[in-house]
């Protein structure tokens, strides 16, 4: 199995960290991974994105021209990435900021209010980790437990309290996706 994902948003939303957590988790469970951030003048401008490939096989190109998933944290990124996701792929949107309609009917689109959920958890800064939990559930690229374990060895694992709240954030994101999927099915 090979899963190619793009994470995109404003600089400061923790977009690159989201991709890093995924790549790091993938590596920890023995998969081949590549992580490629956008770089150069672009990064310093304000928008940020990265591409992560997780695979059972050696990865050819770390660039994804038609990713399986796009995780979109702001409106400008929706415009840029909604069109490139492969047919049948998934689109995960930050419902607190992204309100534009998606003009494709060949994708699974889930809208998760990650900022609201993070706020309810008492840590606004964990919105990106909530989104990682949502992505884990939606993509099934790795078990949620693997993400939780891996988190301890990223920058978020330095303080026990921070680690704890971010593990809760992963759970909350995954749960939000399960609820959203149920709604999708019943709709």
């Amino acid at each position, binding site marked *: 199995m090979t899963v190619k994902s793009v994470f995109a948003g404003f600089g400061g939303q923790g977009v690159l960290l989201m991709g*890093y957590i995924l790549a790091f988790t993938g590596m920890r469970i023995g998969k081949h991974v590549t*992580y490629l951030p956008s770089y150069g003048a672009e990064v310093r401008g304000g928008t940020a994105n990265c591409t992560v490939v997780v695979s059972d096989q050696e990865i*050819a190109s770390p660039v994804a021209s038609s990713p399986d998933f796009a995780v979109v944290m702001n409106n400008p990124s929706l415009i840029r990435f909604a069109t490139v996701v492969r047919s049948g792929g998934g689109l995960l949107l930050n419902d607190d900021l992204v309100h534009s309609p998606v003009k494709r009917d060949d994708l699974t689109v889930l809208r998760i209010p990650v900022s609201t959920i993070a706020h309810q958890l008492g840590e606004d800064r964990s919105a990106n980790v909530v989104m990682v939990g949502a992505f884990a559930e939606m993509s099934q690229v790795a078990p949620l437990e693997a993400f939780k374990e891996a988190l301890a060895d990223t920058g978020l694992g330095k303080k026990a309290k921070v680690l704890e709240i971010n593990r809760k954030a992963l759970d909350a994101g995954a749960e939000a996706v399960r609820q959203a999927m149920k709604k999708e099915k019943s709709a």
Partner: protein
Amino acid sequence: MTKQLMRGSHVLGEAAVRAGCRYYFGYPITPQNEVPEYLSGRLLEVGGTFVQAESELSSINMVIGAAMAGGRVMTSSSSPGISLKQEGISYLAGQEMPAVIANMIRGGPGLGNIAPAQSDYFQATRGGGHGDYRCLVLAPASCQELCDLTFSAFDLADKYRNPVMILGDGLMGQMMEPVEFPEPVDPAALPKKDWILDGAKGRPSRIILSMLLDPKRLEAHNYKLTRKYDAMTAAEQRWEEYQCDDALLVVVAYGTAARIVKGAIKRVREMGLKVGLFRPISLYPFPKEPLSRLTQRVRQVLVFEMSSGQMVEDVQIAVKSQAEVHFYGRPGGVIPTPEEVAHQISHYYHNAHLAQGEAADGRRAGGAA
């Protein structure tokens, strides 16, 4: 040793430190700024020296000085900066000073852009600066290989007393992949060099120079260098053959382009096309003999580069008239997709009637039975 998830630029720096490199002299340029950023801190930890010079010119000349004094030394830059360093690289070659230079190639000519490209192949493999010389050039295609080649580059530089160039691109510098690092080398445990300038204590004074005003002496010196390049050619050709055993067409590509080709081969193999990859890892010396052997059997060759065609000339020299050599390139920093390359492979494969040839063979086999 556990794997670490690290970006290419940091991998380069870490592998250098582990190889015993303690001196880095550089100047900022995108897309390789993470190399000096990493080493500025890392070299402090191991008691090394990091200098951000005022220019590319000064940084490469500091490298010359550090090499003369016996230090394991490196610099890094990207295309326009490497152009500026060429005079110094020519001196390193003429003076036979060991040093490692990394070029994370960006789109050119001129200021170009900061996207990944392979357009400095000629510059790297033909010397690059003035005079009759070569650098040993290594082109990794993954972060792990970047680590391994950087680690051995310092030994090769010392072995041949010659500059060694690591040829990557912007993508390789930015990309993160899991890497397993080798155990660190203690610089104090490295073999002592008997030619360095460290003060003539208890021995006659030494001179290091490339200037030989007498043409006969310079000629002798150039022949000595040539013999060294011949020795490199005999001992240091590195390459990878991927799915070449049954191939009717091979793609020749290196570095990032070779990764894309692997993705393309997966696609065309699914369609039943027998295609392999020949990936040069050492660009100088170019793996001429193995490619020549391969093309005694495989008569269709497609060269793919992220440039408008440079390595293709070395392929033609190696292949001679044994096989038909085609070229596909994307210059300017464009990263082609595996689908696009697969399309090109399929085009040349069918143009050469390889699919039909196979069918004909099949009929003959059937008739015989």
